[in-house]
């Protein structure tokens, strides 16, 4: 759907790929939301501290986030059938990092790729039933787009003009 996909073998490679994209593309501030990735066995670590950023995620509101050029977030799932990633937000600041930025870099683990959208039904039900905080779940298919004028497709109306998906899994090593 117009997004670019990169494959990274592990968390370290993912960090390198993300930093390279930021280095090449950023024209302004970068903000990175927490990115928990597996690190051998059941352990996970937040790699967002290793990403070149200018604005901390914690405590940044819409005024500060309104100035970002690059936003980096983690998606919880990806759907093969529809070619989209699934973002779970427990604070709207996360949604702003992925929607106010000009360039959105999204990290998704290969193991979370689900064949069809229907597969999400039960997972969504569990996520928003019986919990104190119910996440806002967003499917993101690619850069912001419109065909409202003469049906000509243009990218980057209100949201990102570019989306880069970094796929973290065993078969990484290339882009």
């Amino acid at each position, binding site marked *: 759907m117009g997004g670019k996909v990169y494959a990274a073998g592990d968390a370290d490679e993912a960090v390198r790929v993300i930093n390279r994209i930021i280095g090449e593309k950023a024209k302004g501030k970068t903000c990175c939301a927490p990115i928990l990735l597996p690190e051998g066995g059941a352990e996970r670590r937040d790699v967002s501290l290793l990403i070149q950023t200018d604005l901390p995620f914690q405590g940044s509101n819409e005024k500060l986030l309104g100035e970002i050029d690059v936003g980096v977030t983690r998606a919880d799932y990806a759907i093969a059938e529809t070619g989209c990633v699934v973002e779970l937000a*427990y604070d709207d600041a996360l949604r702003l990092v992925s929607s106010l930025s000009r360039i959105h870099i999204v990290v998704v683990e290969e193991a979370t790729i689900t064949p069809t959208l229907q597969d999400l039904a039960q997972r969504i039900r569990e996520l928003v039933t019986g919990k104190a905080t119910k996440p806002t779940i967003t499917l993101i298919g690619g850069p912001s787009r419109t*065909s409202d004028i*003469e049906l000509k497709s243009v990218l980057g109306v209100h949201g990102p003009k570019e989306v880069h998906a970094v796929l973290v899994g065993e078969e990484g090593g290339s882009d």
Partner: protein
Amino acid sequence: MARRKCTRSSWERRGGATNRMPKSYKTLLRKITYSLAHPELNRILLAATKRGRDAREAQLATLVDPEGFTQSIKNLKTDAISKLDYLVQEFKLNCERNGSTVVLARDGREAIDYIATLAQRHGLKVIKKSKSLTTEEIELNPRLEERGLEVIETDLGERIIQLAGEKPYHIVFPAVHKSQTEVAKLFSDALHEEVKDDLQAIMDAQRHALRPIFLGPGMGVTGANVAVAETGSIIVETNEGNARLITSIPDVHVVVVGMEKIVEKWEDALRLMIAHPMSATGTRLTNYVSMMSQRLPLAGHPRRELHVVILDNGRSRMREDPSFKEALNCIRCGACMNICPTYGVTGGHIFGYIYPGPIGIPWTEEVHGLDHAAEFAHLCIACGLCREICPADIDIPMMIAKVKEKDVKRDGQPIANRVLIRYEELAKIASATAPVSNWLVQNGFSRLLMHRFLGIEKRRKLPVFVRNTFEKRFLEIKREIPNPRGRVVYFPDLTVNFTDPSIGVRAVNFLQESGIEVILPRGLKSSGYPYFSYGELEKATKIARHNVETLKDYVNRGFEVLATEPTATYAMKKVYPTLLGHTAASELVASRAFEFFEYAYEHASGAIQAAVIGERDRQRIGFHVPCHQRALSSGRHTIALLERAGYSVKVIETGTCCGMAGTFGLKKGPLGYELSMAVGRQLFDMFKLEGTELLIATESSVCTWQLTEGTGYRVVHPLELLVPGTPA
């Protein structure tokens, strides 16, 4: 000259044809005339609707089971509407449990009051909106502006419409009629700075201008594409991403959701998520789908509100009305607009009030009233294509016929409809008095009189009536078939009987030679479809009942029913059962009614050998699929048989109607001949591009008249090609 003019106007004053026009027609005729004089306005619309149809078809083809998918959408919507009271309560309960406020608004005024009061209570002056048809329905923007609030639409198409002060032209592409140049001008004026006539420049201007609005104070108002009862969740789909900003930044977010959008489970919601973009734009998924179950904090800041206004505004009443209940199954994809032939040339400002297009007719009647619906209901030419494209399989044509019926009962029919609707009686007289009647019909002066007094277009070439009708010819050719391989009833319909019996003769000869017994029941009437087209449902039902009763006995004895006219088969299969409340007899006849070639392909294709032509003179055939045939076989058996006989066949189509639509194209003026030709123009051009040696084949008699007139080519019934020679 002056005297003639004077005579004419005094005749009109005394109640001439124009004065007899029901009031709903008058504005409509003026609007169509303007539209037909400015085809450039619809250039982009025609391209848009075509692209919508093509993209949808391509996307649908990627599904494993497209028909099963449509059925699942229909089932889930029907199920949800049937238990809507429960779902509304369930949704409300769960949503409130999640900490949000839910209000049930009986009508637009209650919804508007609530929203305006809420904004005032929070001291907010700006309302930021993402696209919502439901708020258009209640005219939320002007009502809020009257109360001193500033409303800003953030979807590009909606923003263009707002700046232009217009209503949406199409539900998916609200500003599809505006050129890039016009948009650049609108934006330049609104922003008080020059915006270049360049797509990227317009986009940058929009992004730049709206950023401060998104980030600034104000209340967010959105619609909802789906609401999920089991968890009290709201789903908003956008491609631009504006709704993401509107549902996250403002401290107060209001959702206005039509009651019918509530479904029970997430499984249903996810299915609709695929169905919406597939039918609307031919894409797999909308770019951003936001599923919200409660208000989240922003950067840790907690006290933020979500208000859900569930709008009734006539929906509960619709649910109780068996005639219009099905309209609530609409998923607002706009596919019916993309295929509607007359919408395609007139656009949503003529073919619509607030809700445009085919489904807009019943919705407008129910929500905004008959007066507004009648202003465009008669643009429907009953081609039936909207029902075929609808992802929820809604019988839109039947609901439109019911709206027309309400208007006709109140205001009467224009003269041309009153004349043409009695086509069977007229044809009988014309046949009995041929050739005198033909001389009258072809004579310039009498045509002028018919044009003026009966509303029959003088430029339209009318068919020639025969004295020796098919009913008479049948008695001559009928043979006893010993040990028949099959037994059929032939349904000749009007044109075969009175104007072109040779088609029926060829059909009967062909069947008999293949060892099939053919009978023509006494008293069978023609299909009665014009009554349906013009909203005379009581008469249409009477004919349906008569024909079903007549055919039922034969079907019970093992006969199958064949017609060479697609409309006749369509009426038996798709219209009679609904008109008759799905009685056992009507369903029985529907199940045994076939198109002639469908039957011939299965039972008698061996006989086609007779028609084999040499490889060297493979005649090129341009095949036209009539609208009613699209709902049946789309001509696939006919094409296969033509190819087997050695013809080179190419289906030539725009994907919509040729414009004739039964007797519609016979009527004079803008709501008849002129609109009919405007609809057909694209198709005529496609045929003409094929070169003059092309022969056109189609099974519908009225399409034959239209294509003959529009292309100047020879148009034949495929039977003429497959059963050649002069029929005995």
